């Protein structure tokens, strides 16, 4: 089997389209594995993985954990709320302390952009970025594109719109990089107060009219409004946000074609999308979660194989 061009998964930015295809092929295999009666394989036996979460996470953490368990890796879990980080220890010290216990890989979520990149330069372990501030969330983008590919085939020429808080979203950024590398057309839609001013430099078009955007796309990715990241009010109220940028059944049914609806979760039901949309046949939100495990297994497996 061929190998990744990188030693760490720091972001989609650092991957080639061949890397992405290799991850998808590997994930195809693991998806088949996790649907077997015996879901566990010995691929990462004797590999120790530390899951370091310096920021709250439920589904990403669980998804990584289950992926690691399915691969028979030994796991160490750590989150900042019960660590010495609060006592003022530096990130390098914290991680090196953990690595002294002979850890091979680190999966890290951190509130600062570039934290995974920084760690990869200063510690001796393979790093998987599980989200660093508003920078990247590569495994999320991979699982999103993987899910789109399952539904729509080759993404080349497919139209994808990402709706919502682009400014604070690592998911949006990683998805833009990933989808562009796979040849999809990407647009972003939302209030300009939630849009980086120079987002156009990444080769995406900005739209402010949701209906127009939805009529253009094959796939709509509705982002969660990250209330915890808003340092100032960028829109007057959630009520008004959902009036302008919320997707409800009426709007979905009024479109010219049947689009696919995605959401990285967790959903604020009634804000970005209504329950009837989230639970509709056009939504592939739960497939995304299942694919997340297969993608993370593929990433861990491929990185562990690199020397």
């Amino acid at each position, binding site marked *: 089997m061929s190998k990744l061009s990188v030693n760490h998964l720091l972001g989609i*930015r650092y991957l080639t389209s061949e890397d992405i295809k290799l991850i998808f092929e590997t994930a195809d295999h693991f998806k088949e594995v996790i649907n077997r009666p015996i879901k566990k394989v010995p691929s990462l036996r004797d590999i120790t993985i530390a899951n370091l979460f310096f920021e709250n996470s439920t589904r990403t953490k669980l998804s990584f954990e289950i992926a690691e368990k399915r691969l028979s890796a030994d796991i160490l879990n750590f989150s900042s709320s019960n660590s010495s980080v609060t006592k003022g220890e*530096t*990130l*390098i010290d914290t991680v090196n302390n953990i690595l002294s216990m002979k850890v091979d890989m680190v999966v890290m979520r*951190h509130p*600062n*952009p*570039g*934290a995974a*990149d*920084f760690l990869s330069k*200063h510690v001796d372990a393979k790093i998987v970025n599980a989200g*660093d*501030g*508003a*920078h*990247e969330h590569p495994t999320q983008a991979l699982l999103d594109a993987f899910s789109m590919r399952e539904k729509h085939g080759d993404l080349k020429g497919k139209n994808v719109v990402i709706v919502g808080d682009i400014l604070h979203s*690592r998911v949006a*950024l990683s998805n833009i990089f990933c989808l562009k590398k796979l040849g999809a057309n990407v647009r972003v839609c939302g209030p300009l107060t939630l849009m*980086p*001013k*120079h*987002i156009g*430099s*990444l080769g995406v078009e900005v739209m402010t009219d949701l209906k127009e955007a939805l009529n253009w796309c094959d796939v709509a990715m509705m982002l969660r409004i990250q209330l915890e990241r808003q*340092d100032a009010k960028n829109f007057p109220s959630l009520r008004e946000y959902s009036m302008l940028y919320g997707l409800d059944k009426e709007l979905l049914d009024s479109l010219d074609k049947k689009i696919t609806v995605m959401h990285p979760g967790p959903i604020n039901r009634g804000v970005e999308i209504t329950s009837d949309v989230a639970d509709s046949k056009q939504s592939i939100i739960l497939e995304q979660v299942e694919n997340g495990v297969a993608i993370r297994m593929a990433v861990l497996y491929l990185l562990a194989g690199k020397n």
Partner: protein
Amino acid sequence: MNALIKSAKIIDSNSKLNGKTVDILIEKGIIIKIGSKLKNPKNIQEISFPDLHISAGWFDMRANFCDPGHEYKEDLNSGLKAAAKGGFTGVMVMPDTTPSTSTKSGIEYIINKTKANIVDAYPAGSLSHNCEGKEIAEMYDMHTAGAIAFTDNKKSVSKSSLLNKALLYSQSFKGLIINFPNDKELNNNGQINEGVVSTELGLKGIPALAEELIVSRDIFLAEYCNSKIHLSNITTKKSVELIKAAKKKGINITADVNSYHLLLDETELLNFDNHYKVNPPLRTKGDIKALIAGLKDGTIDAICSDHTPEDIENKQCEFDHAAFGMINLQTSFSAANTAINGKMELVDYIAKITSSPREILGLEQIEIKEGTKANLTLFSPNEKWSLKKEEIISKSKNTPFIDKELTGKVYGIINNNQLV
């Protein structure tokens, strides 16, 4: 200090000897004779270097020496040593220390602590008390003690009414007010220039607008107060345009740029190297072009090092947590020279680190002529070199220039009857 400098090309826009290659005889720190092929009867130490150029001693308008308060990063002594190594015979020391230089005693501390040094240290006093941006400091008292300008340095003055008062009040004793144009609200804890790179890295951007709005405001205030003002750390194309238009209109405004802003742009940050994290941030190639054009046409008057030492704990950490700034006294000329060489006459940009800053600050001009005190910088604008980590004089090592080849090398300085 006696020396005979052999075959040095004089670079000095104010001198008739500009462009001539001469020998210079110095005895007891005084220039005794300038001529070609001077004899050396007293067996004085001869100085010769490849491609030797000589100019009036260089002056840096913005050096942060962290003394008092953070002497483990830099102190006045180590800072002046770095300045000497970088070719500077005079520096203006910034007041935003801990505590800040906000009183007569703060000014006297710097003057007394740096006496008899080869490098002349001139203190700037704070504009507002403790650089808090609330009330004007005792500027007159500091002025009589030796403060040559007033600024809150990187703590840009937010309150228009405060700057208005400072510009009016300082006219009683012809004090110079310096402001760093930076709108704190628009800056909003930004990390790097708002642009392509900040978008790609998910880092908070500092819009050019944060600078340009305050440049406009300060121009309006200077006009309203009929006062002189100096704007520091100019980085954007529009700022250059605004200052150019203001000068044309006759407003008494001067401006400076940091040498590293002439050479480095935002793309240096693509791999999160926080040695390039500076305030104001590295901008775009287009901005660099405009800054160099601004130097050329006289819109920008001075080039600064903006020497800002930071210890390893403040740099070897997550990008958002890293401190802004780089040490630059040893590399300032080379950085600027590498960026400008060939685009502008050498004598014209040497003026931006010699006569021009001294004129802005009302300091005595330095002449290269017989009978005057020798205050000289010896350098080559063509020699290539790279800074080695062990050669760094500063206590802090936060520079992106280690092992990077730069064009333009400093050989030494002569000042105050001393030679380095």
